[in-house]
């Protein structure tokens, strides 16, 4: 219900087209890569999904994360730009419910983006690798995992946007965080838990114990950031 309202608030801001274009752009990455260098990948070991993700996921994840950062900035920009947030605060609605509705909206949009990307992966698998229908299990696992690992990034990014009234500040912090994520060494488990770095993880080739560790860590991060949002609202109210 509230998600629908948040979606309505984002009318004419280009949120939906931006996620659509972003999804298509990220989906084009494996297709273009295969079209240009098919012979390089066709000789590689592994399943088609594994090869495709290994080759392209870094760029695709980068686009996804940037899209999330831009989307969160925009969602709170509409609240702050014409002072609508003040009106919202003087209505009997919890600020936290606005936040979580926005989060749910972004999660849905990200799912939509991942589905487009999964579609591209299926296309590439069939077109170049002549894969059988057995790829679907692996595909679902991979993208389901990618979806879970995107969640902390969405919540933290939204938290940053909610904290700052000026869009360039939240965008700036978001961009710095994305950059930090690209600098972090990939072999350290602890560092790769940085919320902007988790979306870069790939399911295939990761052992099951590791996967479980990531899922638990992601759940913990979600709880932490949600609490942080609640605390932030309290503190803001205190100093208002």
């Amino acid at each position, binding site marked *: 219900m509230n998600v629908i309202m948040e979606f309505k608030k984002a*009318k004419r801001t280009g949120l939906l087209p931006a996620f659509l274009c972003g999804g298509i752009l990220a989906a084009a990455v494996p297709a273009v890569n295969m079209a240009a260098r098919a012979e390089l990948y066709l000789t590689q070991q592994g399943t088609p999904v594994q090869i495709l993700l290994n080759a392209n996921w870094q760029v695709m994840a980068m686009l996804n994360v940037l899209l999330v950062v831009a989307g969160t900035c925009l969602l709170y920009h509409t609240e702050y730009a014409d002072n609508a947030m003040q009106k919202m605060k003087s209505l009997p609605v919890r600020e936290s419910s606005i936040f979580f509705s926005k989060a749910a909206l972004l999660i849905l949009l990200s799912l939509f983006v991942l589905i487009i990307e999964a579609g591209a992966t299926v296309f590439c698998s069939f077109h170049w690798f002549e894969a059988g229908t057995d790829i679907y299990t692996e595909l679902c696992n991979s993208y389901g995992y990618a979806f879970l690992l995107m969640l902390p990034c969405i919540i933290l990014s939204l938290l940053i946007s909610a904290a700052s009234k000026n869009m360039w500040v939240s965008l700036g912090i978001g961009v710095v965080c994305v950059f930090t994520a690209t600098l972090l060494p990939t072999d350290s488990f602890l560092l790769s838990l940085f919320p902007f770095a988790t979306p870069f993880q790939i399911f295939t080739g990761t052992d099951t114990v590791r996967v479980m560790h990531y899922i638990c860590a992601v759940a913990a991060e979600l709880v932490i950031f949600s609490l942080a949002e609640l605390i932030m609202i309290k503190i803001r109210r205190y100093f208002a």
Partner: protein
Amino acid sequence: MYIIETKKLTKSYADFTAVSDINLHIPKGAVYGFLGPNGAGKSTTMKMFLGLTKPTGGSFTINGKKYPENRMDILKEVGSFIEAPAFYGNLSGEENLEIIRKILGLPKSSVSEALEIVGLTQFKRRLAKQYSLGMKQRLGLAGALIGTPPILILDEPTNGLDPVGIHEIRTLIRSLPEKYDCTVLVSSHLLSEIELMADRIGILNHGHLLYEGTLDQLKTDAASNGYPTDNLEDTFLALIDADNQERGVLK
């Protein structure tokens, strides 16, 4: 029976006190005029009622409910319009009201009613950012009046309106208590305006409450203090001037 009552309500910032120890008494079903020059603390007081800013001292009750314990309940009963209109620029006037309607859980018809009351019906599909100043002001008023809440807090509602609009809004505010059985707290820096709307007034200057009571009482008091009484505007100016001199503030 007072619907809004404050006890020594205070708001101080690091370097100045915006509202200082004020005791307001707003009776149910009245139009209460809140008067004072720019920066007297009218908006700050109203913001405190809505929980938009936190009092640093004192307390207040609205319809028997205390802040901050019953903040949500207070907000459910208060329609508000504070300072510059607050809206979503990317949405039309109708869509803006639709959002408020949903949050308040009002029937669908309340949007068109609110638009009708403020006279925005023919512009309801235009984007709020393309509205003229007066239309934005009307949209803000519609957001306060929607669903006719029992208490209305209106901060300088006639700012930016043309003379016809000012007259319309004044007449509207005047008629609200009778029509919808509600209480209105309206602020202005023009006594002439308050005079036409309010039953009771409170005069604020530099965060202090100089006077509270009926207009007639104000006239009697002023006469006994030797202030001019033939024109209320002069009475008001003399009152503020005397207070400023007492505080050593330059005119």
